[in-house]
């Protein structure tokens, strides 16, 4: 059973008062992550919205020690910290329980510039959690495209809409043969919470990607973050799944869509709610462009359904 939102612990690691926009999905997600991780953790941050909103030196709005690192280095930096802690523990220089080491990184720092070092950390199976909060663009620098930006989306570097589909980063991480991979999003906090608890209690490399609908980049009303997140899942544009030791299972409400028990909501509704697809939706070829996006979603659903049949 998924933990109910009513039963989440009272622990708050995200302190009140920080620089994020109202309705920020990254902050919302981090709050749930904090409830699952508790205070005994060390946080690494790459340049991103979560850094811009964390507060100024030496304070921070997240109640962990937080190391700011170079953009491309989430994987290797987290590896450096955990190896240091583990060897210091072996040598008797670190009292208490080993802290959880986790990186809190955007899609830019995960899919693009940080891909290499993350891949290497996964291949080494270092004992860390990499969180990717995926707002499908470089939001902090003013919304440019990333490898996570979906086809058709406006960004400042794709002014007529991106012409390529996004890549399936979570699946790529799964193919590193790591013990735990999961996807989540802010509309399903109990699901996210449970996944983080699992990751915390699994030794080795863990990857959790959280879809983070950002009102600024996606161009919707600030109050609708959770609704956008829910619509992404119901349309199949975002799939909720987890893989323990390579065995994939789908979580609700994605599971019935994958099993064919329930149809995904048509993607058009989801797209219409967002200004970033405006140009595409208003063009004379709108129906064809929407069909392309629907095609990307259908392909991912079909692929993940088949991939899940392979268990180790």
């Amino acid at each position, binding site marked *: 059973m998924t933990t109910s939102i009513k039963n989440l612990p009272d622990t708050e690691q995200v302190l009140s008062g920080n620089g994020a926009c109202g309705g920020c999905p990254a902050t919302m997600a981090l709050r749930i992550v904090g409830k699952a991780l508790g*205070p*005994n*953790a*060390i946080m*690494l941050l790459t340049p991103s919205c979560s*850094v*811009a909103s*964390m*507060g*100024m*030196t*030496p*304070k*921070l709005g*997240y*109640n*962990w*020690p*937080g*190391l*700011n*690192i*170079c953009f*491309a*280095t989430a*994987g*290797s*930096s*987290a*590896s*450096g*910290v955990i*190896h*240091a*802690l*583990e*060897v*210091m523990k*072996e*040598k008797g*220089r*670190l009292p208490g329980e080993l*802290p959880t080491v986790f990186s809190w990184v955007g899609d830019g720092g995960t899919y693009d510039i940080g891909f*290499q*070092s993350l*891949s*290497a950390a996964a*291949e*080494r199976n270092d004992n860390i959690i990499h969180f990717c909060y995926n707002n499908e663009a470089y939001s902090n620098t003013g919304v440019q495209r990333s490898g996570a930006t979906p086809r058709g989306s406006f960004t400042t570097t794709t002014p007529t809409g991106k012409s390529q589909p996004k890549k399936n980063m979570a699946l790529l991480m799964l193919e590193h043969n790591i013990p735990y991979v999961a996807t989540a999003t802010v509309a399903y906090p109990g699901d996210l919470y449970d996944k983080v608890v699992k990751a915390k209690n699994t030794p080795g490399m863990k990857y959790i990607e959280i879809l983070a609908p950002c009102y600024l980049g996606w161009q919707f009303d600030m109050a609708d973050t959770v609704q956008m997140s829910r619509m992404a899942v119901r349309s199949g544009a975002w799939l909720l799944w987890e893989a323990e030791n390579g065995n994939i299972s789908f979580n609700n409400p994605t599971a019935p869509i994958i099993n064919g028990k329930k149809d995904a909501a048509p993607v058009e509704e989801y797209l219409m709610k967002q200004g970033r697809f405006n140009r595409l939706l208003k063009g004379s070829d709108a129906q064809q462009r929407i069909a392309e996006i629907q095609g990307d979603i259908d392909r991912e659903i079909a692929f993940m359904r088949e991939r899940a049949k392979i268990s180790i």
Partner: protein
Amino acid sequence: MKAAAQVIMDTGAHAAALAVKSARVDVVPGYPITPQTAIMEALAAMVENGELHARFIPVEGEHSAMAAAVAASAAGARVFTATSANGLLYMHEVLHMASGGRLPVVMCNVNRGIFAPWTLWADHQDSFAQRDTGWIQYHCSSNQEVFNTILQAFRVAEQINIPIMVNFDGFAISHCLMPLTLPPQEDIDRFLPPFEPEWRLDPAHPSSFSNVTMAAEYATFRQMLADDILAAIPLVKQAAREYQEITGMWDGDTIDTYRLEDAEVVALAVNSMAAELRLSVDILRQQGIKAGLLRPRLVVPFPSEDIIQVLPRNAQVMVLDRNYNYGHPGGILAQELKGALFGRRNDITVKNRVMGIGGIDLPRRLMADEIRAMMEE
């Protein structure tokens, strides 16, 4: 009874690995590049067979090697890594994080010319290109000096929270066998106490590190780093002196000199070519020229005061640079020296040659001939 020092034959690269082992490091991220690879291989083996209780992290590139190094250092570990040439350049962004974050990582850079085009052999463009990254830089001229300097570097770095790069030439030092004296471990432990960082990433003390600053705060951090790099000079001297007291070995402190007191012509160079230059000095002396050698061990901070103090009156200084100072005629050492002397020692003449680029051999006679030719100019 006190253990005796041991004398072995060893390469510079392996001497470096032995020094790292005796420094009892905790974490070694590593990535291969010729001619540095031998250091990483030796350390990986020592970790694997239990000789060294540390973690070897086989990262996927040098940018990650330095990232893992600084992060491990921030977590409270004593950290070492090594690289050469393009590997060092690839680290550039993270070198600044190490110094700006005040993390006392020690790294060997085995000097090699940089791409393009490719070369495998020594010159000093790699380390000199990183002059302004906020790292302290030693340059060494023998295998023994490499060993001794790594231990001194850990001590100084941890006293002042600034990372230190220990440079020495590829092949001429890294791959050549020379006698190496290994002091007893208890002496090294006495010289280099365990690393006790002033702060580390500790959940009991949640705080941010290297986070966003306002302009005034940023400027203050930068000024502190600039000041502290200069303040390292007395610590470098003290470390050399105390190392000598404990082990009996001396390579110079900020500088090393040879037959300098009455010299009229002073050769100035760093690394292995400076070892060969001693022999050039002897040749010149036999030819009736009052020659001497001045070898900076420290390049950052540049030991200006010490150089001003030791240069004999009216000397001609022949700077042999194994690097280019693009946009100026000649090399970077000459430029640094002129900067140090300007307005302080107007009696000194500075002449400059760029030599030995891409590993071109620099035998003693060739350098002696070159210095004689420079005297004519």
